[in-house]
């Protein structure tokens, strides 16, 4: 991006904080009200998208250095989701059972309920933020993306070679 607009840059920086706060509130109230990890992830990713648009990819990744770890974020999120989904296997219960069990007492911090689905939602949040950031990064066409495509010499003919 050759001439980024100042207004957009300022708005992007100003909106980043509120978007994180909104995301947190979406996760906290998610179980009794509208909202969950997915929605929260999308809100944060929208904030990030604004950064990418206003600053350009390289400047955005300088301003928010954690963006470089997006692939790791995404994989951690997926593993966290799988972990919370499949851990009941260890005790021989059906997968996706949650702790404390339905109807049991749930500890709360304010209106935040502390039970295993919260971890699942956090995993989902990380996964969504990670995936969307990776997509933004790729779409912004950063150098280094094309490295993968440099094809080393072929060791066998591609199937499609027309034979005389």
């Amino acid at each position, binding site marked *: 991006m050759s001439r980024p607009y100042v207004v957009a840059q300022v708005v992007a920086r100003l909106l980043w904080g509120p978007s994180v706060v909104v995301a947190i509130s979406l996760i906290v109230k998610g179980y009794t009200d509208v909202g969950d990890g997915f929605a929260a992830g999308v809100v944060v990713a929208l904030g990030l998208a604004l950064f990418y648009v206003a600053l350009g990819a390289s400047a955005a990744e300088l301003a928010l250095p954690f963006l470089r770890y997006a692939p790791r974020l995404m994989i951690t999120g997926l*593993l966290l989701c799988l972990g919370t989904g499949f851990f009941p296997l260890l005790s021989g219960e059906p997968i996706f059972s949650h702790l404390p069990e339905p109807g049991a007492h749930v500890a709360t911090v304010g209106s935040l309920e502390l039970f295993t689905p919260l971890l699942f939602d956090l995993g989902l949040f990380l996964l969504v933020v990670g995936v969307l950031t990776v997509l933004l990064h790729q779409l912004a066409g950063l150098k280094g993306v094309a490295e993968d495509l440099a094809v080393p010499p072929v060791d066998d003919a591609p199937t*499609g070679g027309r034979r005389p």
Partner: protein
Amino acid sequence: MTLLATVLLVPWVAGALLVGLDGRRRPLAWSAVAVLAVGLVLLVALTVRVASAGPVQLVTGGWPAGVGIVLRADALGATFAVVSQLVLLVAAAHEAIPGPRARSFPGLVVLLAAGLTGLFLTGDVFNFYVFFEVAMTASYALAAYGGRPRQLRAALVFAAVNLLGSFIFLLSVAGTYRITGSLAMADVADGVLRAGANAGLLVAVGFFVAFSTKLGLFPFHFWLPTVYAGSRPAVAAILSGAVANIGGYGLIRFGAGIFPAQLRMAATALVVLGAASIVYGGVLAVSRGDTAELLAYSAIGQVGYVLVAVGVGGPVGLAAAVFYSVVNALNKALLFLTAGLRGPLVAGAFVVGALSVAGVPPAAGFVGKLTLFRTGVAAGSPALVVLLLVGSALSLLYMFMNYQRQFWRSDPAAGTTVSPLPRRALVAVLALLVLALGLWAEPLWQLSQQAADLFARESG
């Protein structure tokens, strides 16, 4: 129950880890192969249990069925899961021998295995869609493997057409929920009986179009030759031997399991479409000089047999459809992998594949064709038997024309290099498997019959 959850967990976690690492390193590529092998062993164990003790079912969270998502392994799903996993394993090993050329390849194959396993082992229509998308997303990325313009073109066509197919599938899922108020397959099957005939037919046609597009049946085949001929041999083997199984499985599961009344109503149309597919694929394959393109048209013809068998229906027809789907998946994987290789053992493996496609003993395809002939006889239709015969004759013709062109050429100076021995040994092992399946077809045939008996209530 634990086994059912474990077969899903293993490839999913491993796939998530592997996509994050550089798959071009040999050890990682081989660990992907190891994961697939472990998955295959677990799936075989699951299949044995299902075959001996009946379907295994699991409801997530211990909720009542209908609230929780149902995972269910029965003979049909387990059979398809095993054969798909086997094809993925062989294709991944084929690429791991020289070392994959893209960092994401091993991870994507393992994630594709997770998607396919989930899809074949779910008892819930929407969950089917979710795993379907997991599998398709992985295969869109795989189609571009190689990174040359040819492969990118193939990937673009594949993704565009199949996204459209997935969209039609999603619309049909929404329609199913609208007319039955349920998403668990068992409840949906009951709900469809009570729903209006037109609404049921509309949704059933939606599913048929979606699965036919995946499978590459005659009127929906247009994307297939470009994609199969353009992608790398291992990817073509994965797409035709594992991903296309979604279509065959879907036709049987949704057609016979959920919409049996609509299936009976449309039986003639299905048989006609299948016949068109057989003739179209066969005739065009004869006219192709390029091996991969020939195999692509052959694939269009071969899935026609599956559709004919589904259309005839009944225990005999459905068992034949399951059996032939499995044999066809192995044939296609073998032939696509063989087509990219040169050197000793390769011609032999190709001949086994060719014999199997044509339905000549002792290859597995012979037993497959035999079951199809039984289907034709059961349907009491001489025309169908003649059609099957013509189709087989055509496939014998094009396979051996191609064999001559590939392996009997007298100019060894054409610059063909001999492929590495492990790769050739791998296709030879797969060829032996196809032969063994032809000589000892009893277990697979039993499984196919068990799978068909699942639907005896509906079709009887």
